[in-house]
């Protein structure tokens, strides 16, 4: 058996993105180079290096177009302080409004102030008009000849009022137009934000799926480590057994009167000695290599997970920023509340951690034979699964799982193990024998691989072994 295959495997070390990007997607090399730069900037930001305000040529040209108008300078002012990677968000922040909407709002306020001034003037004129009208009426009632100047004054008031009303209508239209502008601006901003939130979500979903895949593969490695340890232990025990038998043969030969010198040269003893030493060497070497490879592989997967997670983070942040820019409040407080562990829960998890389960290697399985408790050092996988499933039935933790075929939820016992799946996943045969220590390790890793919550199953596993094993005598 050789592990050279692994040694020759190409390294999965990360290479810059411009090299990684598929050719079909990079028609222009300059474009790719730019993207590579973006990724470098991204990494800098993530590592906290990108704190200095960097102004890219793109920014400069963008800002270079800044006209002399003071309003525009106000709009673009923020960009000077935005480091490369956050530029999009910075621009969105600008588009998000602040200055623009503020300017519109200021104008609306000015117009409204003018309208209110006009309203008060109109009401003054109304009052004056009514007074003049009442004087004219009184004069008419007293048969006093009509004063033309009063008639003229009344007409003048009417004309002025008409002018003011016209002006007020005009201003009101302006206010409405401004308000429409603000609304349309917000609508447009939200439309863009929505579009990108959707697109980020579309892309982030497969990232999370792939991250989940990598975590699953890491857990598989964990299971393989447990299985390898069990196999190694078994092999070493088998070698020890052969060695013991060899000693018995030597002793039997000695009893026949054969001298030690001859026993050593006895063909079968010689062959056995060779085989034992060869097997021991082989298994020791295998243990070393498998341990090295499995741990190396696990480390590499963990690095990949960390790297992928780190790279996904700014995109997740950007998606969040788009949502924030839309002024949609993400229930940060509620989320925090949900994530916070209640003291009661903490107490419980501490209790699980400190639950007193003795070292498994010092324990044997509790078995019953003819009503008497006996101990079993090792048990076959099929029997262990039966015992486990019987225990799981007693301590069932149900979960409702949606069944798309039936169209309703199905109640499933989380801890019950499907024998076929267990054997397929672990590559163990039904009659493979395991001791408590190995079964515990394999069971833990199998359940973890199946995505069960650690705090729930570790307590159940501890209880299982507490019930079903006893201290070796």
């Amino acid at each position, binding site marked *: *058996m050789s592990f050279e295959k692994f040694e020759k495997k190409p390294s999965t070390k990360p290479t810059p993105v411009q090299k990684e*990007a598929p050719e079909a997607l990079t028609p222009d090399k300059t474009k790719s180079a730019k993207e590579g730069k973006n990724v470098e900037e991204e990494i800098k930001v993530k590592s906290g290096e990108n704190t200095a305000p960097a102004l890219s040529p793109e920014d400069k040209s963008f800002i270079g177009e800044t006209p002399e108008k003071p309003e525009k300078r106000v709009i673009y002012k923020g960009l000077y302080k935005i480091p490369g990677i956050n530029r*999009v968000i910075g621009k969105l922040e600008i588009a998000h409004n602040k200055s623009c909407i503020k300017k519109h709002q200021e104008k609306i306020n000015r117009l409204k102030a003018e309208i209110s001034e006009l309203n008060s003037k109109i009401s003054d004129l109304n009052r004056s008009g009514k007074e003049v009208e009442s004087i004219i009426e009184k004069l008419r009632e007293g048969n006093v000849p009509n004063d033309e100047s009063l008639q003229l004054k009344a007409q003048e008031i009417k004309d002025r009022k008409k002018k003011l009303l016209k002006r007020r209508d005009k201003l009101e239209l302006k206010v409405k137009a401004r308000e429409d502008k603000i609304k349309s601006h917000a609508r447009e901003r939200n439309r863009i934000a929505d579009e990108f939130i959707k697109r980020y979500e579309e892309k982030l979903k497969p990232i999370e799926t*792939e991250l989940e895949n990598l975590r699953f*593969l890491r857990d598989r490695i964990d299971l393989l480590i447990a299985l390898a340890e069990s*196999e190694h232990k078994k*092999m070493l025990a088998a070698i020890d057994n*052969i060695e013991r038998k060899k000693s018995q043969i030597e002793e039997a030969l000695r009893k*026949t009167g054969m001298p030690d010198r001859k026993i050593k040269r006895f063909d079968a003893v010689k062959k056995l000695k060779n085989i034992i030493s060869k097997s021991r060497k082989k298994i020791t070497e295998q243990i070393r290599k498998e341990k090295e490879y499995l741990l190396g592989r696990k480390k590499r997967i963990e690095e990949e997970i960390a790297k992928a997670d780190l790279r996904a983070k700014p995109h997740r942040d950007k998606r969040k920023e788009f949502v924030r820019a839309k002024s949609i409040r993400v229930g940060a407080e509620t989320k925090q509340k949900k994530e916070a562990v209640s003291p009661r829960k903490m107490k419980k998890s501490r209790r699980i951690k400190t639950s007193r389960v003795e070292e498994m290697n010092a324990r044997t399985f509790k078995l019953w034979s003819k009503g008497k408790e006996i101990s079993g050092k090792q048990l076959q996988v099929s029997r262990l699964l039966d015992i486990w499933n019987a225990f799981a039935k007693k301590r069932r933790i149900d979960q409702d799982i949606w069944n798309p075929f039936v169209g309703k939820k199905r109640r499933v016992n989380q801890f019950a193990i499907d024998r076929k799946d267990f054997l397929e996943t672990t590559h163990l045969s039904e009659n493979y024998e395991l001791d408590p220590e190995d079964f515990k390790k394999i069971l833990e890793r199998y359940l973890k691989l199946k995505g069960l919550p650690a705090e729930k199953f570790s307590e159940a596993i501890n209880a299982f072994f507490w019930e079903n094993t006893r201290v070796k005598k």
Partner: protein
Amino acid sequence: MKKNTSSLLNKSIKAEAQVLLKRADKLIKEIDKIAKDFTIQLNKIDADVKKSTATLKKIYFDLNQIEKEAESKIDKLISEQTKALDKD
């Protein structure tokens, strides 16, 4: 008589040793088989890891594209707003 017994004993020891040798040979084969099995499983995991990493790289590339598009659309929006403000 004694020689006969000794020879018989030797024969039985030899037979027992043969059985043991067969078991030892089987054990060596088993060690190799287990190692081979692990290699197969590890190779499968390796291939899956590579597949996942490649998919992730492709997604990151697409995300960079989205970012560029977002930037240009926002630039356009800002520019339109600015023009609107100019008119006022």
